[in-house]
């Protein structure tokens, strides 16, 4: 987080373009990666990241620091943008991110990361979308429970409960369940 973030937010809300530019510089890579992990495609990730920042730019005045941190607010916008993207596809299943898609889905996907993602996807796809999101946000996006809870609009306790349920659901896949348990219990908040 930038040391002068609250000042930059205030200036942005007052119309300061340079201030918003500094916030953009701070968060563009994080948000892009967050979106990429949910789409697995460069152009789609760029498109959705653009949409997220444009929304943030247009809605900056509505941001309230008493409700959530700026990063949480920004991640929330990005997450909703991704969900909107998949929901506007003509798919006959409910999809909120790329992990939910069947193998042959007709959507764009980067080839270079596909092999590795398929491997880890075998495990992640056994979880429901919320549990999977928690793991990815914790491990890959390096977000705290508090941040995840705010982004997902759930309580922190609820997020922890989701993990417990994930463990229960993964009885048949014990090693991975163990991993989930270890990971979610031991990574720093």
């Amino acid at each position, binding site marked *: 987080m930038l040391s002068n973030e609250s000042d930059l937010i205030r200036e942005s809300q007052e*119309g300061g*373009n340079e201030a*918003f*530019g500094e916030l*953009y*510089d701070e968060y*563009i*890579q994080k948000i*892009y*990666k967050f979106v*990429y*992990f949910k789409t*697995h495609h*460069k*152009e*789609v*990730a*760029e*498109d959705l*990241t*653009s949409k997220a*920042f*444009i929304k943030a*730019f247009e809605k900056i005045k509505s941001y309230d620091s008493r409700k959530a941190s700026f990063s949480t607010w920004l991640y929330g916008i990005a997450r909703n943008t991704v969900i909107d*993207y998949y*929901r*506007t*596809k*003509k*798919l*006959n299943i*409910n999809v909120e991110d790329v992990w939910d898609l069947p193998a*042959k*889905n*007709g959507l*764009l996907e*980067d*080839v*270079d*990361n*596909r*092999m*590795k*993602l398929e*491997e*880890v996807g075998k*495990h*992640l796809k056994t979880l429901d979308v919320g549990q999977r999101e928690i793991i990815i946000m914790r*491990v*890959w996006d*390096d977000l705290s429970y508090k941040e995840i809870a705010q982004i997902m609009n759930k309580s922190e306790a609820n997020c922890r409960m989701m993990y417990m349920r994930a463990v229960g659901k993964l009885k048949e896949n*014990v*090693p*991975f369940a*163990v*991993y989930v*348990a*270890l990971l979610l*219990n*031991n990574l720093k908040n």
Partner: protein
Amino acid sequence: MDPNLKEYEEVLSDIVGKILTAKPDIEADARFVAKLRDELMNKKIKNKLNIFSMNKIPFIAVGATAAVAVVIVVSVSLVSGRLPVNKLTGLITQKTTSDSVIQLSANAFGSLGIPSDSGSQRSALAEEGALTADAAIAPSVGFGGGGAPANSGSMMKIGEDMAISPIYYQPYQFKYTGGDFVIASGEMPVYRLALNETIGRTMARLLSGASAEFVDLSKFKNAGVRSMHISQENGFNIYMNLDQGRISLDSSRPYLMTDTVMRCDGPDCGGYEPEEYPQLPETQLISIADRFLSEYGISKTVYGQPFAEVDSMGDRFGFYYAPRLQTVVYPLSFDSKDVYESGGQASGMRVLIDAVDSEVRSVNEILNPIFEKSNYEMETDFNRIIKIVENGGMWGGYYGAMEAGETLEVGAPEYVYLHQYDYSQSDGIVRELYVPALKFPILNAEGKNIYQDSVVVPLAKEMLDNYEIQNDVPMPEPYFMKGEEGSGEVMPMDAMVESSPSAQ
């Protein structure tokens, strides 16, 4: 460790390794980041461009004369049919001088330097002390160029007796198998995109003459238009990066997102997207692209023979599938020699065609076809070039070998140009150079974990000198994962398990 978990230790290690190393090591493309930033800043400026906020219009000092360039962004909505886009793009790509190449005196571009990322992988490792006898590299992304060392937040420190990385990639060895090669000349031309001849100033004059109702643009002396975004209803978005002399077109039709259809669960939804797309024949793709470029007056004079781009590695490994957007590349070409990026990919204009309706969806890297050229001293010692080739090129380590010593054979080279960015600290401008180079084909790429099909080495003597000075480091050894999360601190596996509530 909880005895109940002990039996899973090996499998657990494997899965931990997989999920951590599976994290795509991606960065947002620098050009995308800059473009989006411009767009955001321009939105702001556009909103504020009124008589009451004139004091906030940004001015940019240029050179000793302190000439002022005003960043002006104009968004114009063209109603289809009212203003023909082909005329507009014709204006944009028109030549501003009678010749598309401006000859300058020798060494006119100053120091050529070396690519900023040259040897970065090895240098970074050297700085981290990773290039020790028992250290090595684990690519965080598997293929091509090896990816960066996986030393960021996704790594997990483990006990000395426990390795969790599922795959260890080794650097490929390179061996030149072609014959002798005589470098023709000790002096060759380096080309540079002529930024001074871009149409930014021309457009500024047009705009300043037009004078908007809310501000008299003619008052801003020496103003230059830096970027424009023109949006055509049901047509194209035209992004003009004028001071960098390039344009891109992108369909404003929502081809990735469907128009208005929201989530649809019912039996009557229908119209699902096809799961697979047809691979259009190359001749058909080129024909479509040619027709489009002709229709919109986009010049092809600085480009060589077009070709359809195929994911060569996917093709080799049998997992290639035809994408919806299929690409025709028009390689930039000087003196009948194509331009390549450092990784061996052709550099130039790309036309993306939708396989569903055979329509062009976007055109990228339309360059203002004005270049400067200046002669520079070239290396004529072929052995010196071979030494760099057998080191994997200037950009080093091609990881992906499953066994140490796996060798890539490179054959006799051909002359090409290497595309290189040149950042000037004096004026903060990034210029684009095209440097004479040799392109060595990799002869036995079949079945290898690499995207590159060649190694490209520049011939400019100064670049080779600088490279050798800055990259005097040994080739890295295979990586033994000792990485740590974040700055390096993740608990050992044993400690992690012991502190787990599940283990208590």
